[in-house]
């Protein structure tokens, strides 16, 4: 799989390594102050603490505004990689200080704050800042999961990263999305949304075997996932596993309720039967689909085509006459199938926010060294960067 999509990049590994060092106290070795002449470190750290403090007080929107203001000021429009790295390190230094005074659970609100900033940066079409926010949240979530090794932390990290992968899940960015979703699965292998999203990314690249492997994993977790079973059957048909595809589709025909899924099931069943050389049976299935969904153009056209191939042009004519325009804004079943799948990520994001709310007091506890008037409290005797 790694050969088909970009995996963890070198800089990502570097950051993983660096975050670990930072959080065990080695960040002091990051470099002398003189190397950061143009970055006002005190201002950056104070602003970051202020943003986190707002969050700890339950002022999420103000916290987001403050975070984005400081990042935009610190990074500018076209920041260099070195600059981004320095900003990242000094923010981590603040988090490290908070962690020393509280529990790792304070990372949850910090992670969700950066997660939310990512969405806003994307909406504002600020890809560099968005990437920075994504990296910040991903790295902290990964650190938390790897440090505790608890299933809950792994699941949390999996959801955070999957949320980023979902945001990029379209044709143009499917490669990036796949890399992110694979990161999510590395941490949380049973994440259904990541499995489905990554399977879709493989499917549009014609990597049906990879898609099948992921979809089978998903169906082991959620046997009743109709969309996953449908995609599994479609991929199997393309791989020539016709009998297996036929079995999956028949199973779906007996249980699926969503109209677009039923439409594709009829279409794929008919196509599978054609591939098996059973044209007469294909005609029967297409007819059944047409009778169940007479307004479905795709089934009607397939039915007409099969009837014509079976030497029944008059029947084909009669079916074609019943094909009526659907008007604009009504996607066909095949369009819905092709479009990025609904990973039900809104529910995930709601869960993330709920987890954040539950841990704001932990965050407040971690920020108690901050006296709230713009200056570090007693606990902050070192200067920025943990020096």
């Amino acid at each position, binding site marked *: 799989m790694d050969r088909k999509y970009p995996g963890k990049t070198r800089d990502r590994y570097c950051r993983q390594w660096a975050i670990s060092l930072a959080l065990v106290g080695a960040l002091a070795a990051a470099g002398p102050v003189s190397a950061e002449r143009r970055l006002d470190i005190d201002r950056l750290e104070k602003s970051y603490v202020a943003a986190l403090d707002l969050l700890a007080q339950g002022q999420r929107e103000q916290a987001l505004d403050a975070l984005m203001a400081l990042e935009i000021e610190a990074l500018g429009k076209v920041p260099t990689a070195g600059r981004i790295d320095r900003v990242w390190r000094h923010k981590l230094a603040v988090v490290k200080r908070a962690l020393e005074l509280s529990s790792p659970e304070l990372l949850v609100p910090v992670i969700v704050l950066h997660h939310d900033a990512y969405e806003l940066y994307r909406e504002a079409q600020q890809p560099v800042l968005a990437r920075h926010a994504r990296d910040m949240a991903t790295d902290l979530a990964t650190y938390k999961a790897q440090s505790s090794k608890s299933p809950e932390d792994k699941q949390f990290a999996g959801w955070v990263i999957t949320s980023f992968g979902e945001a990029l899940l379209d044709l143009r960015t499917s490669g990036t999305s796949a890399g992110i979703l694979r990161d999510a699965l590395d941490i949380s292998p049973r994440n259904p949304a990541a499995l489905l999203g990554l399977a879709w990314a493989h*499917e549009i*690249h014609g990597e049906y075997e990879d898609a099948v492997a992921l979809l089978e994993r998903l169906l082991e977790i959620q046997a009743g996932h109709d969309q996953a079973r449908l995609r599994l059957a479609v991929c199997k048909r393309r791989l020539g596993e016709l009998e297996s595809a036929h079995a999956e589709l028949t199973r779906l025909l007996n249980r699926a309720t969503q109209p677009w899924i039923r439409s594709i099931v009829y279409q794929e069943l008919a196509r599978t039967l054609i591939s098996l050389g059973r044209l007469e049976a294909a005609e029967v299935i297409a007819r059944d689909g047409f009778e169940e969904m007479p307004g479905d153009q795709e089934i009607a*056209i397939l039915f*007409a*085509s099969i009837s014509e191939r079976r030497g029944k042009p008059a029947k084909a004519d009669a079916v074609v006459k019943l094909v009526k325009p*659907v008007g604009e804004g009504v996607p066909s079943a095949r369009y819905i199938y*092709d479009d990025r799948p609904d990973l039900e990520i809104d529910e995930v994001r709601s869960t993330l926010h709920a987890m954040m709310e539950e841990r704001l007091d932990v965050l407040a506890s971690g920020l108690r060294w901050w006296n709230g008037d713009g200056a570090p409290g007693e606990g902050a005797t070192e200067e920025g960067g943990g020096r």
Partner: protein
Amino acid sequence: MRPALLLCALLAAAPVAAEDLQVWIDHPVGDEFVHGVVSFVVAVSGEQTEGATVEFAVDGRSLGTMIRPPFKVDVDVGNDNVSHEFVAIARARGGLEARTTVLTPKLMVDEALQLNLQQFYITASNSSGRVLDLERDDFRVVEEGKEQQIVTFERGDVPLTSVLLLDCSLSMTGEPLEAALEGASLFLDGMNELDEAMVMLYSDSLLRASDFSASRDTLRDALAGVGASGGTAINDHLYLALKKLDPRQGRSVIVLFSDGSDVHSVLSMSEVAEKVRRSQALIYWIYLRLRPGESVDKVPTYMATWRNMEASQSEFRLLRKAVEESGGRVQVVDHLEELDDAFVGIMTELREQYVIGYYPSNSAKDGSWRDVKLRVKRSGVKVRAREGYAAYP
């Protein structure tokens, strides 16, 4: 004039009651187009048939008189697509006379075609442009290596039925769709009185479809106010257009406007190509090339769950092949301002086509593909037409 009316008129003037001597033509019959050697068969009846003679005449020219039955003569009426007048005059010994006439029709290409007649729509051109003065004898038709006899020949404004099949998917948003709709409207402006058209607008679904109509206003209404949305299902809608044309008589044409990337069709292009071979419709594809200047052989790449890049490229090539096999052509458009000329140019080309028909010497309906070569005897003239047909029952 209808034979029965003519007979009545003549009998009304005859000095003897009709039942005394009656004559009719057994063959040819009045609604059948004839060409070549035709059996002219006459029968007489009545009280005064004893010793009656029958004079045969075709197109005002007497062929002679037969003095005894069977009253049958074979006559070569030629191979022109014209109507013929067959006249039989029976004369009794006593001077009693009865006459009847059969008018065979000219074969109209906008009428139902006879089952075996194969028609080809031909565009002829040389280095100077379109060639418009060719005659029947300038053409040769060779089917599977065998010379065929041309029985119908038309030139110029043969009525046509067209389907304007326009891609309104999201990739056509804005100026591309506006330009296409304007071009389509110009195509409709070029329709003649006997022409009919249908407008079909599609994306991943059929968005809008008019009925077949000769009214330009009605058809223009179908083009109005549509917006671009959704995916692209070329194959499905091309099949649908071919099916809509199936019951239509005479020359049929599909003008497809698309950027060529089928994404969502349930039918494969190979299935549609099979339908194209069964059809006599000409397909013209106005291909809006998204990357101007690229070779037309450079296939667009597109990925989707239904068709990966390789399959997408294959579909594109098959579409182009099907268009060329139909006798139409691919009109590549790199700039939107070329669209008007593209639509108008197709209509002009249709107005300048030759229509040739022949009865294949191999009449077997075995579903096999028959390769047909159309040649012009005049040097320097090239022709474009359907490359053959599938001999389906």
